[in-house]
């Protein structure tokens, strides 16, 4: 688990991961909150659930996310 619940993040780039789908390209640059991180095995490769402002909740690979400063 690299991210924790409630942290504010930005989708700052596309991911090359197989779980990245074409429609997600539209989400690059959006901000959101981590709502369900990988909560079991602390796997940096796990998909984390992010709620994007105005765009709903989706699971993303962690390499396209970065934390926003408070």
């Amino acid at each position, binding site marked *: 688990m690299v991210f924790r619940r409630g942290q504010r993040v930005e989708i700052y780039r596309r991911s090359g991961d197989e779980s990245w789908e074409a429609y997600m390209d539209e989400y690059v640059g959006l901000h959101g909150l981590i*709502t369900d991180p990988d909560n*079991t095995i602390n796997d940096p490769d796990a998909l984390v659930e992010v709620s994007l402002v105005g765009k709903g909740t989706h699971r993303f690979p962690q390499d396209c996310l970065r934390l926003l400063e408070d």
Partner: protein
Amino acid sequence: MPAKTCSVTRTVTELKHTIDAGRLQNPRSRRIAEEILQLLNDIAWGRAGDRHIPAIASLADELAYDEADAAAMETAAYLHDAVDHNREVFVSHIKTHNCSTGDCVKLAPAPCQMTCPAGLDIPTYVTLIGMGRDAEAIDVIRRDCPFPWVCGLVCTRPCEFMCVRARIDTPISIKFLKGFAAERAMSEGSYRNPEKAPDKGQKVCVIGAGPGGMSAAYYLILKGYGVRVIEQHPTAGGMLLLGIPRYRLPREIIDREVAMLTDLGVEFRFNTRFGQDATLADLKGEGFDAFFFAIGAHQAFKLGIPGEEGCPQVLEAIAFLRRVALGDRTVPGKTVVVIGGGNVAIDAARTCLRLGCREVTLAYRRARTEMPADREEVEQAEEEGIRFAFLTIPIEVAKNNGGIDGLRCLRAELVKMEGQDRKYPKPIEGSEFLLAADVVISAIGQKVDNTCMTEVNGLDWTRRNTIQVNTATMETSRAGVFAAGDAVTGPATVIEAIGGGKRAAESIDRYLSGIPQPSMPRVPVRRGRIDWLEVPASTKMTLKRPDMPLLNLDRRRTTFQQVELGYPENAVREEARRCLRCDICLRCGKCVEICRDKMGVNALQMGYFDFDHPVKTDFRITAERCIACGACAANCPTGAMRMEDRGHERVLSLCGTILNRQKLLTCEDCGAVLGPARYIEFVRKRTKTVARAAGARALCDACSRHASAKITTDNLPSQSK
């Protein structure tokens, strides 16, 4: 990809421009155009019905009555074209009260609804609960989630993380309000199933009776399909029943909500393992037209340490919880160590305590602040006497003759690794110690057990060993086969599985009806346009999120009785009043800008409007500074800010929060409403150089002019009469 601008808004804007620019010279054409504009606005504001589109077409025909009126002919042609080419969007606005682009501002879902993986219309049902209309609230919830009671107890509530109220103090207690309403509706007998669509004569087989599978089953049967659910265990519930202990989610609650599915006609086949007792070929032979796999993630990860393999004193948490859920009350041991920091680890530890284990320790390799388990669950576990060994890395199960001495561990320290944001636990050399135990329970996560799926050829799997799907439709690589839940996401949440099941049901319906699938995930649908609850600003600011009453500690340590006892009714109704109704106020900030920058009053302190940089909010400030000019309300695009005269008062409210209430003054001569004193004073100050003051008297403009005129009908010289 969806349109970037909404075709309904575009049509409204274009027609309004045509009217405002005076292009329609003929009064009759202008009248018809204004009527059409009204109908279009109804659609854009979510108040249209089935007859709106035919009425627009008919009025457009009427508009084209005079061939000599070129502007009218052109406008009519534009309107026909706009509706015909975007009929699906227009119909969607009417049917779903939803604008996927957000251009139709009144139809934009609230952040909480957008966050919910199942898209529940939270502001609507929270308000209904606040009004005491619990059964209606449950009807609203069940349009997106068939298990409001279950979710009211165990949802991870992502909605509360996005709740705008949290930017002021604490989020609305959405989960517990839902639980209360479901319990009340069930208790009163008003928890009811909706009407099913007529039978379509097609059948769908659902594999797995967990939250994802049963959600798909519910929405499919409502759409008119025959549904059979196959489940390897003897009862329905999946992880709800087998993974969540009874003190968090009593079995009766699952049973009551599953019974609602049985009432609808969903057929359950228990003790039936897919791939063994029923194969894909068998089921196809029985006439099933589509398949939905929601097989969950029930296989535990191994610790991977010496002594674990083949040791009967090392248990897997998920298997242990399953045994207990199915009735086994054997005490695993006197002294237990549970390894892990997630909710399953906490569940296993608390279950051990309730079974009679004397000492239960939870070993986690990181610090408390890094624990992924819910904060409330961790706190409750601590209260019950669970011990925590943080920064503890297991290295070996220490065996003795036929049993174990415990778990050999190393202490750890958190160190920052280059290029990483987060600290990692690094073992401290020479810090080895023994954590005494006669049983070790491993709770470090689960994965999908795909052994039952080997016969489903052509199914793509991800490198994470989950079923590969298109997440917008939940379609797998094999036509007619859909999947959702933990089998797709890996171990995730109940509400995510429910959302996936619902999405799959919609896609299965499209597949079986020959309708093309969407390319984007569906935007949550607003289920109603309910009025707000009126609350004074001071109450809105001072109401606090209630604490959940808990079962007493002795019973929590010794029984499986439900720990969270539920809010009392008055707390529920009050909590609903804290909701800011973000489905109506979009926090665009126009009201604040107008008040501060144009009027120079700065009476609106709405720090919560900004997602990235929220600052202080105080609704009470408004009453101190507001002049009740109404500029904020006049410029509010959604009608959230409202100014109205009620009797002898002028009232300013934001989504029902009464921000200001000022006494109205009336003209001393004619009795006409002048406005509140502050507003009159504000106007006088700005007009004193050009308008003559009426002295101390409160007069309207007409009476003031009358009083100050040198010659009036009363003193007109007689020769002029």
